[in-house]
């Protein structure tokens, strides 16, 4: 029975992550970034603590069992982060929400005006600058962090492998 109970730890920890985020964001009025990190850390502590403290009734060895539990949590937590991020960055979700607010329908002209190239460009450039990813030096944009660049290059590599470049 115990091995079946421990199966639920990563999922329970994701709920803790989610609740932690909501408490930090809505209850304590923290920033989105801090709330995400706080919720994530709380979930990680929960899955690690629960998995390490409960007796190992699994056929897997202790290291494998712990790795399994923590990796499962981390991947689900990543999915949660992606879901939150879609609300913040996805143009498709923004358009869907725009249409939803207009009872599901709008003219193409209205959409093309609302989502002009310059508006979308400004929104992205300010988000990147505020996030510390890029900076303006002597009238030219430069990278400040290589995190997004590494993610971008990894995705480019997968695109090449998939024949999508």
């Amino acid at each position, binding site marked *: 029975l115990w091995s079946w109970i421990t199966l639920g730890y990563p999922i329970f920890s994701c709920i803790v992550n989610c609740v932690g985020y909501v408490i930090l964001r809505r209850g304590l009025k923290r920033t989105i970034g801090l709330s995400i990190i706080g919720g994530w850390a709380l979930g990680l502590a929960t899955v690690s603590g629960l998995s390490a403290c409960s007796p190992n009734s699994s056929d897997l060895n202790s290291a494998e069992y712990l790795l399994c539990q923590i990796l499962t949590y981390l991947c689900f937590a990543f999915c949660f982060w992606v879901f939150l991020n879609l*609300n913040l960055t996805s143009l498709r979700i923004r358009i869907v*929400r725009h249409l939803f607010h207009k009872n599901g*329908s709008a003219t*193409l002209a209205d959409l093309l005006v609302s989502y002009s190239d310059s508006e979308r460009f400004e929104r992205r450039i300010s988000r990147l600058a505020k996030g510390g990813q890029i900076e303006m030096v002597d009238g030219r*944009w430069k990278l400040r962090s290589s995190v997004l*660049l590494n993610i971008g290059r990894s995705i480019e590599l*997968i695109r090449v492998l998939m024949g999508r470049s």
Partner: protein
Amino acid sequence: MDGIILVALSLAIGFILQVVWWRVFGANISSVLFLFLSAFAGMIIASFYGGLLSLSLADYVRLALLYLSVVLAYSAVCSAVEVPSPTLSMIIFIAQRAKTGGCREDDLVQGFIAQGSVGSRLKLMESSGLIGISDGRCALTKKGFLVGRLFEFSARFFDLPIGG
């Protein structure tokens, strides 16, 4: 580490299947889950009948949960493979001009526009069944309404500003 090796091998086979599938039939995000789950099912059956791995049912479920979580996370990344992210493209564009002392804003705007306007995004949304376009009007489909309701609720619940 037999269990983890089984998961890693299944992921590798799933990835190879995806490369072949996407190259032959084109990119399709919904195929990712199917291909990876098929790879895992095949590996589980092979290891079970081959006597390579002997675990309790709960541990097979544990490995399946790990595998599913990795595949779901990977599927999220794959959506950026299917349709390039404008933000990541901007970052790569800036990085490519680092040797020339940085990227001028005009060049960056041109690069951004060359990625495609909102019109091309609308066409992608139409082909994915989120919206329908006719007579100069754009309307949410049933699926679009469902997605809209979900994200509207989540934006309120998680206190997120409208993005895009």
